[in-house]
């Protein structure tokens, strides 16, 4: 029996269409993306049925972790720079231009003002380490958090406040933060939660 000859077909496929799709998707993702802000600690937020989304801009985030350490972050770089400048003045620590720029790159921080200079001198990788995440003092003896918050309000009038706390955070810590906020007349804020599926009866 004669062998059936299978005609050889070219394996080259036209990639143009594929390329179109790829770049279309790429454009879409580039335009819709907002980057995940790096947080110094991992926080598991509690869930709620609330469906209100957090506003896009002008947000100050207060992060509270399981052990009650407080972190603070602003969302725009320019604001951060001014913030550190003012807070430095309040505690009579002067920061160089380089340090201010360095600080403006950090989305969220949690170091006492006394250690800020050393923190900024650290290489970028070392800042994420456990040792560097000290938390901002927020107790009644030395309430630096209050100063940060007040200054942030001064820097940006339209600031919205968001509290992001771990679900295991003791209420005591949350209460002290809330009291601090109340003391400086910050009476409206958002509690960040994740969405929960609820069967409504």
């Amino acid at each position, binding site marked *: 029996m004669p062998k059936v000859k299978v005609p050889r077909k070219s394996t*080259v496929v036209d*990639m*143009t269409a*594929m*390329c179109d799709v*790829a*770049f279309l*998707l*790429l454009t879409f*993702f*580039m335009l*819709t*993306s*907002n*980057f*995940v802000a790096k947080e110094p600690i991992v926080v598991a*937020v*509690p*869930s*709620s*049925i*609330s*469906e*209100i*989304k*957090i506003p896009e801009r002008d947000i100050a985030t207060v992060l*509270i972790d399981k052990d009650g350490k407080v972190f603070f972050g602003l969302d725009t770089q320019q604001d951060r720079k001014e913030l550190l400048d003012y807070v430095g003045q309040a505690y009579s620590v002067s920061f160089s231009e380089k340090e201010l720029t360095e600080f403006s790159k950090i989305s969220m921080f949690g170091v006492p003002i006394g250690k800020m200079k050393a923190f900024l001198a650290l290489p970028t990788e070392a800042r994420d380490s456990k040792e560097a995440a000290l938390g901002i003092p927020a107790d009644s003896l030395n309430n630096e958090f209050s100063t940060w918050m007040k200054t942030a309000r001064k820097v940006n009038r339209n600031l919205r406040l*968001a509290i*992001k*706390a*771990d*679900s*295991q*955070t*003791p*209420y*005591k810590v*949350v*209460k002290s933060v*809330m009291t601090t*906020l*109340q*003391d400086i*007349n910050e*009476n*409206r*804020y*958002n*509690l*960040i*939660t*994740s*969405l*929960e599926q*609820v*069967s*409504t*009866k």
Partner: protein
Amino acid sequence: MAEMQVQDKGKKGGKPKTKKHATRVDLTPMVDLGFLLITFFMLTTSMLKPQTMEISVPSKDKVEEDEQNKVKASQAITILLGKEGKLYYYFGATENGVEPELVETDYSSEGIRKMLVSKNAEVMNNVNQLKLDKANKKVSEEDYLKKLSEYKSAKGAPTILIKASDESSYKNLVDILDEMNICNLARYAIVDITPEDLGMIDKKTPPAK
């Protein structure tokens, strides 16, 4: 693929024949690059914005004012958040040294929600009816919001005092605030826990073995 075309000089002095270039370019590396970038953006973006719960607390100077118009005891429900996810509630307030009965419950829909819904039945019915109307497009968005706040602040609605003890966790607080939303309760306040309340919890919990 792009290939070098070696042109042979025209032999007869005539027009040199230029070979037609293939207009096809291999796009495979370009697609690779495209997908690589897509992957990068997909992994770094946060498409979902986090949910928030808006709360506003009374300002400092207002607190003292609030204390003067004490919550009517008959309408007050106090919820105590204890440690390890324990939850208690009582109606009314301590009067003439007589302590109201403390009831232990839990965060499930059978626990605290059942109680709150039963206490707030009228408002719940109204709001549910309103939501139904809205789903059937019987009321406009504006009317809906107006009526919603009207129903929620109705006279008969109970006032909830949320007192969280220091041992309770943040999750407990959010859960309770969530229940307020579910049960359409508009009148609630987060208050500091008093020693009396703590004493009542202590009495309720069986002594440690």
